[in-house]
């Protein structure tokens, strides 16, 4: 394929999504907009966590910690640039450009945090990562609450409301296409090999630690994106938005959808986000429900709803079986 065509193919999902998202943004009521945006942020978090927990077979439970890193970076940048205008651009466009730069910087700092956490813990077997990421999630909170520059426990308030359906939709499309294209690439094959059998993968010449760290860094950077989008929706950046409750919520989405299935994570994230809107009255039972869900899922159906398959594999299956039945004698 010619390079131009490759670029076009990568851009295809965005080109398709753009008009749909624009229409949705214009038609939607403000109440539904918030619900849809939070669902979209959950999709970004779940699909990116799936790269680590699903494809690579490691287990991170501190995804919200990386979201916090991205969120604080983005929030600091937009508040610092608030009121300033880039030369030659109108106020609205300038704000959007600043927001874009803030989100990208958030992704970069979150990726760096992922590198620092991933490097030591991913050299070992998977279960160390779980406890290190849980610890990281707590430490990030301690650091934020002790740093006056980051607003301590009260956080940074007065952020501009910049997150729209379009931004979140584009972020979700980027995350999903990243995950899908990653798993089809050489890199993705290596990750799957690590998941299936780490020793065998290493014997076949896969640099296991290197690939694990790279997957972890990619996932962390997208968590940073989700964090940046979240704080510019609620216009407030506090450590309370990024506790391990949030991390576990994302883990439940990935496990429920099926570890290794991108569409599974997306479906589970959407279902859980909308279900939680309905259950707002009984907030206190939320974590109890999550933990029970995790235990029962592991005992009865550890592969989740979709397993490692994608939604189109499941929809296609009956057709294939019918074709087989016809040729059978």
């Amino acid at each position: 394929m010619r390079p131009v065509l490759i670029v076009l193919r990568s851009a295809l999902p965005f080109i398709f999504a753009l008009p749909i998202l624009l229409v949705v943004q214009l038609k939607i009521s403000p109440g539904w907009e918030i619900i849809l945006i939070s669902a979209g942020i959950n999709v970004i978090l779940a699909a990116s966590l799936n790269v680590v927990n699903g494809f690579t077979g490691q287990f991170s439970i501190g995804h919200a910690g990386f979201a916090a890193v991205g969120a604080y970076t983005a929030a600091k940048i937009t508040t610092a640039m608030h009121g300033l205008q880039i030369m030659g651009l109108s106020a609205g466009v300038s704000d959007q450009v600043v927001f874009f730069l803030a989100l990208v910087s958030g992704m970069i700092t979150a990726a760096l945090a992922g590198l620092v956490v991933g490097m030591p813990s991913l050299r070992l077997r998977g279960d160390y990562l779980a406890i290190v990421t849980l610890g990281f999630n707590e430490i990030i909170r301690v650091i934020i609450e002790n740093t006056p520059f980051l607003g301590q426990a009260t956080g940074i308030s007065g952020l501009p409301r910049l997150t729209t359906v379009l931004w979140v939709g584009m972020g979700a499309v980027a995350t999903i296409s990243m995950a899908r294209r990653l798993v089809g690439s050489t890199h993705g094959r290596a990750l799957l090999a690590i998941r299936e059998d780490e020793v065998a993968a290493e014997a076949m010449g896969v640099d296991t630690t290197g690939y694990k760290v790279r997957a972890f860094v990619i996932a962390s950077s997208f968590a940073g994106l989700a964090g940046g989008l979240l704080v510019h929706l609620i216009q407030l950046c506090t450590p309370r938005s990024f506790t391990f409750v949030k991390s576990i919520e994302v883990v439940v989405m990935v496990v429920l959808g099926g570890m290794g299935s991108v569409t599974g994570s997306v479906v589970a994230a959407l279902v859980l986000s909308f279900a939680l809107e309905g259950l707002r009255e009984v907030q206190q039972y939320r974590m109890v429900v999550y933990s029970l869900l995790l235990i029962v899922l592991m005992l009865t159906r550890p592969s989740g709803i979709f397993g490692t398959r994608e939604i189109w594999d499941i929809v296609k299956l009956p057709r294939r079986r019918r074709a087989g039945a016809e040729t059978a004698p």
Partner: protein
Amino acid sequence: MTEFLQHLVNGLSVGTIYALIALGYTMVYGVLKLINFAHGDVYMVGAFSGFYLANAMDVGAHPSLGKAFVVFVGSMIICGLLGVAIERFAYRPLRQRARLTSLITAIGVSFLLEYGFQLPAIPWLGIPFPPGPTPRFFPEPFTRIGWEPFGVYVSNYDVVSFLTAVGLMIILQYIVYRTRFGTSMRAVSFDSQVAGLMGINVNRVISYTFALGSGLAAAAALLFAGSRPKVDPLMGLSLGIKAFVAAVFGGIGNVPGAMVGGLALGLAEEYVSGYALSSYRDGIAFAFLIIVLLVRPAGLFGKFRAEKV
């Protein structure tokens, strides 16, 4: 110098608690190769069962040493049973499956305990259970007496808890290395399949290991309540992580390693936060863990065993 000694006393008293909890992590890891995420929360349940027992016996109004002993042993038994139940219903059905499955279940159990205890109390139970998110305070089982030798403050609670913890560790050392059960436990930890072929009842050994580890966690909870009487449902979370760090530092799966690791972490935390970074106290254990994983991932006494296929 006085400050240095005071930190030494504080570090030792916290370190023994870490060591007791770390022992539970390390023993379970030894026999199951599973990081028992729920262990920190078993510690929390130990604190609460002590709290309820103490209230039921009215320790606050009529303190006595006998009651303190009953509360102590009672909580250890309750936690031991809880540990056995968790293993029986959550981990055993998954033992033959992928390791990740049991790890996720362990995380589930941990959060179930943490958030189940934060629910509002059930009205028809008679006692305020579940306790809800507000912290409770432990009644004092005997009067607090403080001494100040060389200007260092030491209370009788510190002495009692330190001696009890050391006593428990000596008993554990005896159980693991001198008794029949200890021998079979080490055999299961070495190779559970072969141990089973040699006639060891692997299931029973694992159950007893959970009972032992969870009982030690309850003991740690009650001893810690002597200096920090606040009890709340999330108390096991950070303490659990710290004890895990101690176990990794000593070499996970290694019983003496957990004791040394606990003491080392307690002292390190006390000195670093005492002299330099007091507000980042909870972060020290984490930095410690990262350094251990970078420099010597097998821990102080652990041997790095290459995986055989």
